[in-house]
């Protein structure tokens, strides 16, 4: 009887060890394979949430990159080399994001486009910094997301959005009494709010009410709206995503409160929302680097191709991701890198090249990057007029 139990445990233990060892050796093989086959293609990996709450952003980035990769490959690749592309899901979770990064490393990734969301990006940038791998995030906005010199970003950072919004409101004399409704459970929203409040203070704007909600209580905003109304806010600043914003607009309309509304890039997409009455959004202003209805040729082609390929109107995340690939192409051509170089050498070459290039993309013209990894591009303020985005 004892013997049986012992035998069973030994069997289980050895099964465990063998399975682990098997995983290990598989991974090892994967490594050596990619090392040898990777010399004729650039291996570019992407990380973002394609499942879970933020899946819409991850999927947009995934598709945006795919579109750009296909175009670049068709046009002859980067420096004459084709791109291999793989995207891994992280469910917007730091731990899973690091796992996704390690998976891509086993695959043989040489450059990383990601991650999509801010908090996982901070965890991953720690890893890429140790490995000295070039990292380019399309949409992680927090300051720490690109805190090392190997990391760059395509979108505006939280501080720049908050500060620019406050500057714009003050400089154009839109209002002096401001109400804010923000999502205290989101790093994106609180990040922008904090910087907005700091700049508003400098510019002499008065924040009369700052009300928070969380992702667990994002359906009823009557309390927050009532407080803003009672405090006499002339303009309500909404550093949040469009799903909540649409509810806020509808509920404010029902209670007969009509201040000016000012949003940030998360507001992009509000007109595409199913079942949303576009007339409620009349006069809403927001900062955005990209609008799918812009009439320049590049945007038109991108939107048409994206719709043909994925059957969906691209959001700003897709445009950021698409731009990322072309920026990488420009920097790679400037640096003259080839796929047989080591990850670290590619990173060093790209680091220098990134600060020397100027790119015209969908999300901005004449974009340049500083050594801190921040892009310098002009945000556009658009206003919703007759159910369409109009550049101000």
């Amino acid at each position, binding site marked *: *009887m004892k013997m049986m139990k012992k035998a069973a445990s030994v069997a289980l233990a050895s099964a465990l060890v063998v399975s682990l060892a098997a995983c290990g050796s598989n991974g090892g093989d994967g490594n050596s394979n990619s090392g040898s086959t990777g010399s004729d293609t650039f291996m570019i990996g992407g990380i973002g949430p394609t499942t879970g709450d933020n899946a819409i952003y991850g999927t947009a980035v995934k598709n945006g990159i795919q579109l750009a990769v296909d175009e670049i490959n068709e046009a002859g690749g980067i420096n004459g080399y084709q791109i291999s592309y793989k995207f891994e899901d992280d469910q917007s979770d730091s731990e899973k994001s690091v796992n996704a990064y*390690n998976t891509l490393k086993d695959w043989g990734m040489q450059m990383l486009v990601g991650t999509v969301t801010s908090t996982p990006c901070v965890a991953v940038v720690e890893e890429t910094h140790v490995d000295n791998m070039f990292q380019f995030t399309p949409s992680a906005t*927090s300051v720490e997301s690109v805190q090392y010199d190997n990391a760059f970003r395509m979108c505006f950072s939280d501080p720049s959005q908050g500060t620019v919004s406050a500057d714009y409101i003050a400089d154009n004399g839109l209002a002096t009494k401001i109400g804010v409704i923000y999502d205290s459970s989101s790093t994106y929203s609180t990040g922008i709010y904090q910087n907005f409040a700091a700049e508003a203070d400098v510019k002499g704007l008065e924040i009369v009410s700052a009300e928070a909600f969380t992702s667990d209580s994002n359906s009823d905003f009557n309390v927050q709206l009532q407080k803003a109304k009672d405090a006499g806010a002339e303009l309500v600043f909404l550093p949040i995503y469009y799903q909540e914003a649409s509810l806020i607009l509808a509920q404010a309309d029902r209670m007969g409160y009509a201040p000016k509304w000012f949003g940030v890039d998360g507001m992009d997409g509000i007109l595409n929302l199913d079942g949303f009455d576009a007339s409620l959004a009349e006069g809403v202003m927001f900062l955005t680097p990209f609008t799918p209805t812009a009439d320049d040729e590049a945007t038109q082609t991108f939107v048409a191709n994206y719709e043909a390929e994925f059957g969906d109107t691209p959001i700003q995340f897709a445009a950021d991701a698409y731009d990322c690939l072309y920026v990488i192409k420009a920097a790679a051509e400037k640096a003259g890198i080839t796929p047989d170089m080591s990850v670290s050498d590619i990173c060093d070459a790209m680091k220098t090249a990134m600060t020397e290039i100027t790119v015209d993309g969908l999300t901005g013209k004449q974009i340049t990057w500083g050594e801190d990894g921040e892009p310098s591009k002009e945000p556009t303020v658009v206003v919703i007029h007759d159910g369409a985005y109009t550049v101000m």
Partner: protein
Amino acid sequence: MTGKMKKLKNMKKTTKSNMITYGIVIVAFLVMQILISTGNISSLLQGLMVPLCIYIILAVSLNLVVGILGELSLGHAGFMCVGAFSSAFFSKCMKDVITVAPLRFFLALLIGIAVAAVFGIIIGIPVLRLKGDYLAIVTLAFGEIIKNLVNVMFIGVDSNGFHFSTKDVMSLNMEPDGTVIMNGPQGITGTPRDATFLIGVVLILITLFIVMNLINSRDGRAIMAIRDNRIAAESIGINVTKYKLMAFTVSAALAGGAGVLYAHNLSTLTANTNNFGYNMSISILVFVVLGGIGSIRGSIIAAVILTLLPEMLRGLNDYRMLIYAIVLIIMMLFNWAPKAIEWREKYLSFGKRKKEAVK
């Protein structure tokens, strides 16, 4: 040789079983260590080593409450959260003061465990008077409260000392030289990464040592007597509240230790549903139930398999969460369905012999 064999034979059954459990952990550690040092291992698996240790500790500690004490707790992640944030707070403050990483981690570990244990006592005193479903509901609520509390805490430090707020960073009123340590929903960033695989394995061994010795001690027998029949236990003079509190607090403290490892493995620490909410509490419960309630070794194996599975299934892309769920259901059926047990007994000699052993 014969002497040694004799000694092994004379060993108590439980001691031998415990030795096997330690043996599994140590052998697995040595094998992985050899694979890592010879470079025969994927980066993914190497990165998963510390998380595996974390989940093993969590599963073993929850098994103490669910399997040995016989109470259902759904707030285990809450204790992990408390341990993680208190230790990360300490480590971030002391990052430049104590530069010896192992020493700093050791102190952080003590703090994390102590704070989690204090919370275990605070929660345990009122809650352990409840039974069954009520305890589950209260612990579930506790986990959510902790998560939300952490999300409204803003703590900063400047030349005047600590500043605290539950509103936002601006209301901290810090001097320009101040740094924000805890930034509400953005959590704590920049915790030194002091957790290593070795530390994780040592913590697992300590956890196993504490839990297995508790189970086989006089106190452990009292705890199990309460589980089996509370009235009978009371009638022979066992202080029910004391022993329940003991098991609950030890479990909470160990979960706090796992939280410390978690906080020092990633450079960002935020509290959301996936890592410190009910999702995590339920996942840990799944490890315990699937591994066999009351079986420490089963918890370890289930934690390892279920943590590795979603990562190993990455090749299946979007289908992997579906497959993961299906695998869970199949494993559960295989382990517990009467027909499956019958089938196992009939066709698998392992199950058959086990049944004879039970007889």
